[in-house]
């Protein structure tokens, strides 16, 4: 677990803004209707913990957050915060304003007509804190985010990073029991992101706020989350700690996220046959399936580019492929076939391979992948279960 920063600012006792905050556990087992598919997720975040939700665009991540925030209704299931029931489909719906569940997304969404201080005071004032009390909380937060001198500034006078810092202060000043983080750093440039990242980490640790993080970046999950869910078409397809997810992905998307190459084909009993969809060579990538697979079933071969060797001569387990793209990255040469299989080799090896010149698209070599993991395809598993023979 990499949460928090041991060397960072430590809690300064019961500050005005933190009084009465009790970390709580979030339980949600929800089904939300969407135009294209239902989003069906079970998520449990321990008190003060963080669960990351990963997935493609449109996988249902933001819909899940909207359901937790209370802006879209549940079709089935319930949401519970500690011993408080926030929602039970068709029976109970606590409005967003009373949930103590606060949103922080990639856009700061500061109120443009209010000053920086008024933005931060918005939550405390909405919760019924008096003018004096909320300006004390606000002053405290302005100090904490290093913008004490900009209290009277309008949001558009601040830089993007400063705006996001104000948004973070505004979110925490509302003393949320759960913070919903929707790619909170995605819109920041490389210069301002590290500072905002550290601030967010420090505040999450200091306040012990339970959080749900939606992200595309496995590195964000590494930093904050104790547990990850991978969403695809509204369903949880993989679930593990960030470390496990990286080392042993169980879903093609997780594998892509973790930097593996994924080649899709059909299972022939000993390997994945590269069918037309996978580049149409008919070659077989030998590998071990994660779970028993029927012969002929669609399967995904997962390979790390550094585990693929390339040579001019055939050897057991090698596949004969045309190089489609050649690229370089950090002193390595990457040779890729259109099926997705990529070999990462040193420039010296590349020169030897192509007999003194750099490999070019169109060259034909033997690719030997070591340690191929074979994952089943969700759709095929379902059709097999329904008794359809392939």
């Amino acid at each position, binding site marked *: 677990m990499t949460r928090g920063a041991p060397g960072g600012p430590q809690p300064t006792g019961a500050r005005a803004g933190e009084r009465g905050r009790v970390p709580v556990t979030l339980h949600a087992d929800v089904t939300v209707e969407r135009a294209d598919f239902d989003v069906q997720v079970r998520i449990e975040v321990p008190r003060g913990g963080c669960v990351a939700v990963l997935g493609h665009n449109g996988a249902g991540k933001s819909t899940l957050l909207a359901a937790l*925030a*209370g*802006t879209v209704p549940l079709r089935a299931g319930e949401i519970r915060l500690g011993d408080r029931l926030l929602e039970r489909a068709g029976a109970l719906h606590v*409005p*967003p*304003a*009373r*949930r*103590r*569940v*606060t*949103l922080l*997304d990639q*856009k700061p*969404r500061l*109120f*443009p*007509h209010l000053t920086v201080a008024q933005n931060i005071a*918005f*939550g405390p004032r*909405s*919760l019924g804190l008096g003018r004096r009390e909320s300006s004390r909380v606000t002053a405290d937060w302005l100090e904490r985010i290093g913008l004490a001198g900009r209290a009277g500034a*309008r949001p*558009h006078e601040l830089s993007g990073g400063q705006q996001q810092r104000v948004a973070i202060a*505004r*979110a925490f000043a*509302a003393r*949320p029991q759960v913070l*919903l983080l929707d790619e909170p750093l995605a819109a920041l440039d490389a210069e301002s992101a590290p500072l905002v990242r550290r601030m967010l980490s420090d505040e999450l640790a200091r306040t012990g706020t339970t959080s749900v993080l939606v992200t595309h970046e496995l590195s964000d999950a590494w930093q904050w989350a104790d547990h990850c869910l991978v969403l695809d078409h509204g369903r949880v397809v993989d679930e593990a700690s960030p470390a496990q997810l990286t080392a042993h992905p169980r879903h093609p998307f997780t594998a892509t996220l973790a930097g593996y190459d994924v080649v899709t084909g059909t299972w022939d009993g000993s390997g994945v046959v590269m069918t037309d969809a996978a580049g149409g060579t008919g070659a077989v990538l030998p590998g071990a399936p994660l779970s028993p697979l029927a012969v002929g079933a669609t399967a995904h071969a997962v390979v790390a580019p550094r585990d693929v060797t390339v040579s001019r001569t055939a050897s057991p387990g090698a596949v004969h492929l045309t190089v489609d793209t050649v690229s370089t990255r950090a002193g390595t040469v990457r040779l890729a076939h259109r099926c997705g299989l990529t070999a990462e080799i040193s420039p010296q090896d590349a020169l030897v391979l192509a007999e003194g010149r750099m490999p070019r698209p169109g060259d034909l070599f033997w690719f030997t992948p070591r340690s191929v993991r074979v994952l089943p395809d969700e759709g095929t598993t379902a059709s097999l279960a329904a008794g359809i023979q392939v």
Partner: protein
Amino acid sequence: MTLTHHPGGALPRGLYVPAIGALALLVLPIVGLVSRVRWSTLGGDLFSAAALEALRLSVATAACATAVCVLLGLPLAVVIARASTRGAAVLRTLVLVPLVLPPMVGGLALLSLLGRSGLVGKPVFEATGFSLPYTTAAVVVAQAFVSLPFLVITIEGALRTSGTGHEQVAASLGAGPWRVLTRVTVPLVLPGLVAGTVLCFARAIGEFGATALFAGNSPGVTRTMPLAIYTAFNGVGVTQESAVALSLLLLVSAAVIVGGLRSWRQDAVR
């Protein structure tokens, strides 16, 4: 800014001829009007008792109509902007019809509803003896009827553009629906609200057709500036000189409104 600099390359020359024609159609009548103004007697024409009466009545009724429009139209605009796609389409159509309708037809419609023998007017008259048409209140109703769509459509567009992101954040920070509306939604569309209100007032003060039919043309009660101008050319009421002076006043106020709106929008907070 120059007229000829165009990032997409030169415009076809033939385009300028009809463009100049359009501009002439819009501007030349105004030039004609201004040429008819007798500047030496302008003060006297404008401040003649009859002209002053029409001016006072116009400003008062248009201000009332605008207030009514803001009170009723802002909530309607919010409802339309946050309605489902289909609901919004239906509501928007209902709002747009009076906008496209000839004002005369609007006046007739108002009479058919609120007149002494109208759908609602008849039972009200029989019960209380009160009849709305041909009163100053009728002028306000007629003006509100024709100008309300301008306000609603302008504000609704602004609401749609500003989206719901800020509102969702505000709610998640603990603000109830009323607080979200008054502290976030309305301030965010303030430029649209001001623009809509100004357009609404401009439309109300120039209203003629619906007022003529529904409220009549009685001096001091329902004879607003546009009606006074019309009447003058029928040889009654204010003099023609006064009519021209009043027209000039309406023209100047229109120019001030358009110019003011432009600079205000440029200064408005983003």
